């Protein structure tokens, strides 16, 4: 199967037709599969370049969420006295910071992926979707490193994960797809409108306060939950706390809304990206 797909794109004597594309074409996902080597390599490059010539190296992947956790614990846990659903505040925050940091890093990475790789886009062909995809993939390594610390903290606080831990990959996937969907919009817009690079830091900050990172969803009034669920990251973070820390299960209807929102973001993101794709090399 794989061989067939590869031959279709790289085989001897295969035919390539080059013509103006029209309208909203569908994505050629088989082509992306054929280019998976490149995807892997670009993701690997991101990771390996990120910590080159830094003394702490991957330590930073741990240090960042840990420091944020300390700050949150002091400000929101102690000073503001925000409730943490009966959990120790540090682990309550850290458990949310993991998917959140992954998400915000992937979002800003993928928003910059096209403009930041203009030297590739203007010189060589490959499916452009590879670029934002590689950015949301490379963040997984930092996530995994920071996750080990979470396990250690759980052992320290003597918190056992629930069976819900089996659903953790699903929550992670939702975070990934949300970052990708929003990233597709932003990165395609960024090619034409460099305003995006000013919007993204603000957007991530805003998005963080709209997600239950520092506080618990239980603080959100019941009648606003519907609106709150539109933010897929709310579902993801609540899902993490449920699966790992045994917090009460997340609101089912909120999860459904979150999933619907994810699908919408991804689908429209793909469409917009595809529509703009042909002009990337000309205007980037």
């Amino acid at each position, binding site marked *: 199967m794989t061989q067939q797909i590869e031959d279709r794109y790289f085989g001897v004597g295969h035919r*390539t037709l080059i013509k103006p594309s029209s309208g909203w074409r569908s994505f050629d996902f088989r082509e992306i599969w054929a280019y998976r080597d490149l995807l892997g390599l670009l993701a690997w490059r991101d990771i390996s370049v990120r910590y080159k010539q830094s003394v702490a190296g991957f330590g930073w992947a741990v240090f960042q969420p840990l420091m944020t956790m300390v700050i949150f614990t002091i400000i929101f846990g102690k000073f503001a006295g925000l409730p943490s659903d009966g959990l120790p505040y540090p682990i309550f925050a850290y458990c949310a910071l993991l998917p959140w940091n992954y998400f915000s890093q992937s979002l800003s990475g993928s928003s910059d992926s096209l403009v930041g790789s203009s030297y590739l886009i203007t010189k060589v062909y490959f499916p452009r979707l590879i670029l934002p995809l590689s950015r949301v993939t490379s963040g997984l390594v930092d996530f995994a490193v920071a996750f080990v610390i979470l396990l250690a903290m759980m052992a320290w606080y003597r918190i056992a994960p629930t069976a819900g831990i089996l659903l953790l990959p699903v929550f992670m996937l939702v975070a990934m797809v949300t970052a990708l969907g929003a990233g597709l919009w932003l990165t395609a817009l960024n090619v034409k409108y460099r305003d995006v690079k000013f919007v993204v830091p603000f957007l991530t900050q805003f998005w963080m306060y709209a997600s239950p990172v520092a506080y618990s969803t239980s603080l959100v009034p019941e009648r606003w939950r519907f609106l709150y669920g539109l933010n897929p990251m709310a579902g993801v973070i609540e899902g993490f706390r449920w699966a790992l820390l045994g917090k009460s299960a997340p609101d089912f209807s909120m999860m459904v809304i979150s999933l619907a929102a994810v699908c919408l973001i991804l689908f429209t993101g793909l469409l917009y990206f595809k529509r703009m794709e042909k002009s990337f090399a000309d205007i980037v």
Partner: protein
Amino acid sequence: MPVIRVDHLGKKYALGQVHGDLLSERLSNNLRRLFDRLGRGGDPSPRAYPLSPKEEFWALRDVSFEINQGEVVGIIGRNGAGKTTLLKILSRITEPTEGYAEIYGRVGSLLEVGTGFHPELTGRENVFLNGTILGMKRAEIRKKFDEIVAFAEVEKFIDTPVKRYSSGMYVRLAFAVAAHLEPEILLVDEVLAVGDAAFQKKCLGKMGEVAKEGRTVLFVSHNMGAVESLCEKAIYIDKGRVAAISSSEDVISRYVNDLSESSSVALRLRTDRIGNGRIRATGIGVHSNEAVSSKVIRVGESTSIAVDYEVQWEGKCDNVTIAIDIDDMVHNRIVTLWSKFNNEYFFNLKKRGKLICEIPELCLRSGSYFLNISIQENAVLSDYIRNACVLDVEYGKYYDSGMEPVGGQGFILQRFHWKME
């Protein structure tokens, strides 16, 4: 059997759009229009503030040709004629606006050497990265790795980050990866213009090998010598259209002919110039200081090249330097006569005037040459005109025997004496 078929290919650029636009510009335009409408009691007049009109520009139009398997074809033409656009369409980097192209076979395109090289990564890592970007499979790179490293002559430094490489090593490694691509069809853009002469020669050799293996090569170049020796066929593109397709010899002579014609246009009317335009060259004349007729320049004669200029802005022009490049007909740079080499700077330029270059002895062998003019003010380029004029140098008795170097005996003449001791 044709492996590349190009049919009425065209590419249009909207000039205003080329560098992207700011969202704010659009928004403010829309807002202005809205307020305007409100102010005039709802009279909708869309033309009040139109978006800046976008000029269209066809970088390529009506281009059709076929290339058969195993042909090595050169693409020549002036800068901005659309050669690179053609290559970019064929390598699917950008989409055509009209027409289509069909390609049978695995395409390798080389618009630049070292695409995707990352300075922080080691030579080894970059070979894999660059190879994959150019479309090689990982197993393929592994197989050829030693060969690539040997070709680049960087064995000792292969695990050093490439940011510590000398520029020569960097280019060699980058080209080595590209040279080991094994596509059926290779699209190459002017990449040979990098590296030192010895390495360029090696690359040309490699290109020749590729051609002998029966692969199809499309090769954009300014180096007519390379095109003539590598390609049996050439395509001359002018202003986005195919001006000639034929044997490379014929096409090159046609191209050179066109070039010398265009250079006779008065400099004042030339628009294909770059620089900030504060000082502009408006004329150029070459005169012999010796001969009966100053129009004819002979080898070895005392010659002056006078450039007329005009200052186009109100301020003072100081620290002005001027250079004339002398290129042969196939654009080999023979010599650059830059006033800065002699510490000659000009101050307080008049509104109009001449800058004159005195050459005591013109040591070029007979033939035709292109002159490029560039003028700099405070180290900023004011004006640059390529092929500003053609200089015809006639045979003259320079050496005592009356002989002149021919063929591979060099491009310049030089006073010398042999003696025995």
